[in-house]
């Protein structure tokens, strides 16, 4: 029972990590909590659902399409809306992004209706038995993609010019401006990358969870916990935070009733905020 719970937790944790990385990127770079992040995940999930049901394309193969579309959505939202209010108070940005979140949820409700949707892949029952545990093939694939993307994102932030410009803007906004970084554009790209990562997370959870227009709220709750656990703006931290949350959830439910599962995440969130406000690793700035 316990080894299986640990395996499930690790496999799920990588996706939680992808959710956390995108969320923490925007928070770390622009100092805003993007409450619409959950809706980006939801759009990603719906897009891969639609591509799968209409064109029969496997959700793993449609990931590049979903990423490009979500990048464009995120870029446009930042460029034409968020950049206008990103300098406002916490009060302003929280309410604004919540407004976006419910607007997007309503649009999805009109397009896809309130029904629960899910993707049933032909190989969803397949699994690899190792020792006493089984590894479901779909979840293994999800894990692999999530780890690969985390790695690519890490390289992107460390090795590319745009990644370095994002880092510079996060560390010192005025300084970046002085050395010629187009901050408006960098902010928009940051939101685009964050949305693309959210979209992938959506594609990845679509085969294992059911989707409806209101999953954005619960998902953003998870993003909070992951991000706070991992510390603000750290890729490795977000991955670790995702693993910790997933393990707490899967192991926790083996010992306590499942109705307590949600409670557990929030208790962890509050305790970490109170006792370790810098997260488990004590990092603050992006890839510091």
């Amino acid at each position, binding site marked *: 029972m316990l080894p299986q719970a640990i395996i499930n937790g690790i496999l799920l944790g990588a996706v939680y990590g992808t959710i956390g990385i995108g969320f923490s990127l925007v*928070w770390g770079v622009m*100092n805003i*909590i993007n409450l619409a992040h959950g809706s980006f995940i939801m759009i990603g999930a719906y897009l891969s659902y639609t591509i799968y049901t209409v064109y029969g394309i496997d959700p793993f193969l449609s990931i590049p399409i979903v990423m490009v579309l979500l990048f464009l959505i995120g870029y446009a939202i930042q460029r034409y*809306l968020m*950049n*206008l*209010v*990103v*300098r*406002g*108070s*916490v*009060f*302003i940005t*929280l*309410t*604004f992004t*919540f*407004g*976006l*979140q*419910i*607007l*997007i*949820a*309503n*649009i999805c*409700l*009109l397009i896809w209706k309130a029904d629960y949707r899910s993707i049933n892949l032909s190989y969803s029952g397949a699994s690899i038995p190792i020792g006493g545990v089984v590894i479901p093939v779909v979840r293994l694939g999800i894990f692999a993609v999530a780890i690969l993307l985390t790695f690519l994102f890490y390289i992107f932030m460390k090795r590319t010019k745009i990644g370095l410009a994002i880092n510079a803007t996060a560390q010192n906004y005025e300084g970046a401006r002085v050395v010629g970084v187009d*901050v*408006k554009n960098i*902010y928009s790209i940051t939101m685009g990358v964050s949305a693309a990562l959210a979209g992938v997370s959506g594609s990845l959870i679509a085969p294992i969870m059911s989707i409806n227009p209101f999953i954005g*709220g619960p998902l953003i*709750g998870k993003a*909070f*916990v992951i991000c*706070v656990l991992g510390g603000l703006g750290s890729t490795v931290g977000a991955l670790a935070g995702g693993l910790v949350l997933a393990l707490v959830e899967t192991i926790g439910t083996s010992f306590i*009733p499942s*109705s*307590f599962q*949600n*409670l557990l995440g*929030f*208790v962890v*969130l*509050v305790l970490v*905020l*109170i006792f370790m*406000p810098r997260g488990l690793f004590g990092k603050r700035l992006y890839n510091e």
Partner: protein
Amino acid sequence: MNKKLISIIISVAILSLLPFLVTGFWVRLLTNIFMFAILASALNIISGFTGYAAFGNMVFFGVGAYTVAVLMNKYHFSFISSFIAAGFISILLALILGFLLLRLKGHYFALGTLGAAEAIKYIIDNLTELTGGAQGITIPSMKGGPFLINISFYFIMFALLVIIVIFTWWLSKSRLGYTFKAIRANEEAASVMGINTTIYKIVAWSLAGLFTGLAGAIYAYWFSYIDPPTVFDVMWVVRMFVIILIGGAGTVFGPVIGAFLLEGLSELVWSNFLNLHLGILGILIIITILIIPNGLASLTTEGKGLKGLLESIRKNRVNAL
């Protein structure tokens, strides 16, 4: 000021007579508006005056509602005594949470309060023996005909609204209120000036918690049935935030005006478009923040007339990147 006082007395007089002249629908609508005005005014104390974005403030609403529900259902208390108990428990909760969470600032405080609110929701959800859990809990309803019940809740809610508005008005002139505003303007400077910011922040949050909890207590008795997802819904706090945004944060009447506009419009106009309800609220939030982030109260800061209006809008906008 005299003009203002007269218009306030006239509004109070009209609102006191109104329920005897209109149908039950309007009485209930106004009661609902009063409730949101109370909730927004309460949030205004911690968020508007003190500058702390308490995104989990619905926790007091839910706990106040559940105090009344449990005491009346399980222990057969009267409404009055459970109402008073709800006030005490809300303050106690604010003291405990405030002690733990008010060392956090900005986004971290917002997240902490939200996390605590969600955690308490799930705790109440799981205390099935006491609270009825996910099944919800019924509250013995008030004796009397529909007219008497409607009127009673109207005046209970109205009385609480008058009390909180008078309190906020006093606050805006008092030393306590200036202390709160000093913390909002610059917490470190306030601390250097000898203000014990932690204690004042806890006081502000306890006051907000008290009024929110009392509104929740009345809501439970009024609706006769509550369950955790309803009373701990994050939408309560979002509506409070939007009301404050529309009316103007840190003002006395802003939350009341905002509540009339938002809840009045949403009941009369959007309730006809059930599928679009959320989307319209979303668009309203976005437009309000883009055009008047400091609320309607900021529209006359640069003088009167159209020119003053446009100048006020321009001056009060959030600086774009």
